[in-house]
C-alpha cells in the first residue's frame, strides 16, 4: 500500500503571462511555474480526505472513516518528511539513511529527523549508491525497515545491480525464505529548473521489467509503503516546493497499482504520471482555448474534444485494467512522459493496450456504432526542461492530440 497525495497543474495562459517574471529567484531545485493554480490540487480538507483508495492505518475498524480527521497544508518535501516521521515513530525497526540525510537532505525531506530520532536511526552514508542499496537490502533481509535515499534518480544506476539482481529476486531465489519487504528506496526524479542532463532524468522505465520490484514514480506520501514491499519511490523534484496541498495528518496509505481518473472524458484517453500531469492540464486548457498563434492549427472539432486525463500513479505494477477500460470507451490514447520514448514505459503501455483493446467495442460516446478498435495511440515526449514548455512544445502536444483525434 502506498500513501500519497497528488500534486499540481498549470493553466497555460497564466503560465505564459507569469513565467519568470517573479521578483524572487526560484528555489535551488526550481519550481513549476503556475502550479499553484492547478484545478487538480487538493486544496481543501474535504477533498484530501476523499482521495480515492485512502485507508487509515490507525484503527482497522475505523479504516475508512473520515469524520474528525484533520489535515495540514504541506508541500511535497514536508509531506515526505511527515511520512518518514510517522514511520520512525511507529516502527522501532525503521531507519532512514543516504547521502546528506542527517542535516535534512538536499531537498529537505529529512529535516530535523536525525535530531528527533537520533543518528543511529537517521544517518549519513558515504557516497556510494551501490553501497546504500546493498546496505538497505541487507537490513531488510533481517526484517528491518530500511528507507534509503538515492540523492538523484540520475545516480541510481550504480545501484542497478543491487536493485534488479538482488532486491527484486531475493524472495524468488530463496523460495520465499528471505525477502526485502522492508526496503524502500526514495529518489528525486524528473525535470527540474536548471537540472540539465544529469539532474533531470526519469529512469522508471529501466525498472519496469524488474519483476519483484514495485515502482511508484511520484506522489507525496503521508505514510511510506514500507510494509512487505520492495519499493522504488520516485519523487518529482520540481514539485517538492511548488505543490502545496492539504494532507491528512493521520497515518494513511493509498493503493499501489491503481490509476486515478483526474478528469473524465469520452473522446480521448490522456495518460501520464508525475510532473507532466500538470503540463497535460495546461495543454488541455490550451487545446480548448488556443491562443491566436496556435489557433490556426487547432481545428474547431478538436477544441471540443472531451479528454479523459488519467494519472497512472504506479509503474510496476501498473493499472492496465483501468487504462484499457478507458481506451475501450474513447478509442484513442495519448501517453505522456518525460523519459525517452524508445522502449520506455509508454511503449510498454501502448503495446499492452493495443493487445487488450484491438477488438474492444467502441464506447457509446462515439456514435455508439458497435465494433471498433483503438484507432490511434501516440506517445508524446514532454520536455526535460520545464522552462522550455513554450508555444512550440505545447503545439507539439496539440498536434499529437489532434492527430490522434483525427483532426
Amino acid at each position, binding site marked *: 500500500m502506498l500513501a500519497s497525495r497528488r500534486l499540481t497543474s498549470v493553466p497555460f495562459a497564466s503560465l505564459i503571462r507569469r513565467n519568470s517574471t517573479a521578483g524572487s529567484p526560484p528555489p535551488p531545485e526550481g519550481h513549476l511555474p503556475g502550479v499553484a493554480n492547478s484545478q487538480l490540487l487538493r486544496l481543501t480538507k474535504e477533498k484530501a480526505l476523499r482521495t480515492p483508495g485512502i485507508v487509515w492505518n490507525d484503527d482497522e475498524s475505523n479504516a475508512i472513516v473520515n469524520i474528525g480527521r484533520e489535515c495540514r497544508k504541506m508541500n511535497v518535501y514536508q509531506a515526505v518528511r511527515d511520512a518518514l516521521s510517522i514511520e520512525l515513530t511507529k516502527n522501532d525497526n525503521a531507519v532512514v539513511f543516504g547521502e546528506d540525510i542527517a542535516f535534512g537532505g538536499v531537498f529537505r525531506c529529512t529535516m530535523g529527523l536525525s535530531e528527533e530520532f537520533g543518528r543511529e536511526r537517521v544517518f549519513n552514508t558515504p557516497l556510494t549508491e551501490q553501497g546504500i542499496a546493498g546496505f538497505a537490502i541487507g537490513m531488510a533481509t*533481517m526484517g528491518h525497515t530500511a528507507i534509503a535515499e538515492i540523492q538523484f534518480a540520475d545516480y541510481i544506476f550504480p545501484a542497478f545491480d543491487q536493485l534488479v539482481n538482488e532486491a527484486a529476486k531475493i524472495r524468488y531465489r530463496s523460495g520465499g525464505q528471505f525477502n526485502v519487504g522492508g526496503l524502500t528506496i526514495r529518489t528525486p526524479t524528473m525535470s527540474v529548473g536548471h537540472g540539465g542532463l544529469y539532474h533531470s532524468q526519469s529512469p522508471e522505465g529501466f525498472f519496469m521489467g524488474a519483476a519483484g520490484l514495485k515502482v511508484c514514480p511520484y506522489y507525496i506520501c503521508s505514510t511510506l509503503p514500507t510494509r512487505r514491499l520492495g519499493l522504488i519511490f520516485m519523487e518529482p523534484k520540481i514539485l517538492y516546493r511548488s505543490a502545496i496541498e492539504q494532507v491528512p495528518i493521520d497515518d494513511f496509505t493509498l493503493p499501489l497499482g491503481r490509476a486515478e481518473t483526474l478528469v473524465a472524458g469520452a473522446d480521448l484517453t490522456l495518460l501520464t504520471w508525475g510532473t507532466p500531469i500538470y503540463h497535460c492540464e495546461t495543454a488541455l486548457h490550451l487545446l480548448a482555448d488556443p491562443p491566436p498563434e496556435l489557433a490556426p492549427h487547432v481545428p474547431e472539432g478538436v477544441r471540443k474534444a472531451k479528454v479523459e486525463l488519467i494519472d497512472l500513479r504506479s509503474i510496476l505494477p501498473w493499472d492496465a485494467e483501468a487504462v484499457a477500460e478507458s481506451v475501450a470507451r474513447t478509442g484513442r490514447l495519448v501517453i505522456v512522459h518525460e523519459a525517452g520514448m524508445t522502449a520506455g514505459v509508454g511503449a510498454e503501455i501502448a503495446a499492452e493496450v493495443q493487445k487488450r483493446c484491438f477488438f474492444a467495442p467502441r464506447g457509446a460516446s462515439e456514435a455508439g456504432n458497435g465494433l471498433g478498435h483503438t484507432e490511434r495511440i501516440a506517445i508524446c515526449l514532454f520536455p526535460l526542461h520545464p522552462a522550455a514548455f513554450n508555444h512550440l512544445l505545447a503545439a507539439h502536444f496539440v498536434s499529437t492530440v489532434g492527430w490522434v483525434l483525427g483532426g
Partner: protein
Amino acid sequence: MLRKFPTPRLHCLGPQRRAVHLGHLPNSRSPLVPTLSFFNSVTGSDEKIPTFRVLDGVGKPVEGAQVPEIDEAFARKLYENMQLLPTLDTVLYNVQRQGKISFHMTSHGEEATIIGAAAALEMDDEVLGQYREMGVLLWRGFGIDSVMAQCFGNQDDTSGKGRQMPVHFGSPKHHFHTISSPLATQIPQAAGVGYALRRSPDRRSRSIAACFFGEGAASEGDFHAGLLLASTIPSPTLFIARNNGFAISTPSTEQYYGDGIASRGPGYGIDTVRVDGNDILAVLAAVREARRRTLEQGRAVLIEAMSYRVGHHSTSDDSFAYRQRSEVEDRKRVDNPIVRFRLYMESRGWWDAAAEEELKARLKADVMKAFKRAESLPRCELGELFTDVYAGEEPWNITEQRKELTQLLKKYGQVWEPWRTELGKFKNGGEGSDAVGCLNR
C-alpha cells in the same frame, strides 16, 4: 599473541616522518611535514604483509605459535567436516559429469579456510557467502540431504525451490543468506546485516555478520562499498576474503597489483590480518580473534585467507587450459590442508588409520544414500515458477503468464513428447498447483 606484526597503520611510515612536526591542517590529524616522501606500504617497511600460521606443512606447530585451545571432540568434528567436503564434491562432480545435475563447484583446497572459519563463528552469526562456502552449512547441521536436494533442485530444495543453479544454498534456520550468482553483491549487504544486528536488542553485542568472497570478487565496486560502509557507519561485520589464487582462469597476479586484499583493510581504517588458509588452526585462531574484535569495536574487520584452488573453478571449467596439471598435483602433494590437520591430529593421538578408514567409508555411504534419495525425488510443483515474486496479491501480469502457460500445457502438454517427458519430472506430473491445475479439465 595471535599477531606477530604491528597493526598496519599509515602513520607508521618511518622515523623521518615524525622528525619535523608542523602541526595539522584543520580537517585532518595528519602531521604537516617539510619532507616530500611517497609511500607504498601498509607495513611501514618493504616487507609484504605477513601470513599468520600455526601448523607447518606436516602438521607440526611452528616455533612461537600459540596453538588455539581445542579438545579431541572438537578436532574430530573439524576433521570430519573437512573430509565431508571432498566426499560430497567428488560425488556431485561425477553426478554432474553424468548429466544428472547441471553444475557444481568444489571446495578442493579450501577445506581448512571454510571449516576453520565456520568453526570460529557462533552458530547464529549471519553468514553471507559467495558460493564456495557449503562447508559453513555442513558445520551448522544443514545436512547432506538438503545439499543434495538443492543441487538436484527437487521438491525438497528448501533453499530455492529448484530456481537456482546448484550450490546456491540458503537457510534462515542456519543463518545462511541465500547465495546469488552475481559476485560481491553480498558484501555491502553484509554491512547492512551487521547494522541490523547492532539494532536488534536480542543480538546486539552477541552476533556478527560474516561475509565470504574471493579475491576476484574483491575487484568489484561492491567490495569497496561494503567495507567503506561497515567501517564508516559502522557495523559489526567480518569480511573473509578467500584468496585461492584464481578467479576462474585469471591468476591473482592479474587481478590486482597491490599486496593482496589485506592491504586494503587499513585503507578503511579496519583491523586486518592475513592467514594461512591451508592451516585450519591458524584460520580458527584468526577468525576467533577477528570475531572478538568485530563485536568489541562494532566495526568491520578483514581477514585474507591464502589458499590454492585445487579444483577447477566449476564443472564448466577446465583449469588445465590455463595452468599446468603438474602445478596442481604439486600443490596437492606439498600442501594439502586436510592432510596437514590429520598429521596434527595423529601427533596428538586423536586419529589413526583405522579412524580414517571408518570415516571415509561412513561419509561415502551417507553421501551416496543422500544422492540416491535426491535423484528419485521429483521437482517442485510447476506452479512454483510463478510464486514468490511478490508477497500478497499476485499482480495481473504474473496471473496472465500463469494462465498462458496453463493454456499451452493444456494444448500441447500431453501430445508433444518432449513436453510430456519434462512434465513428468515435476511433482504431480506438472499438475496440482493453481497455475496448471486445470491441465486435464
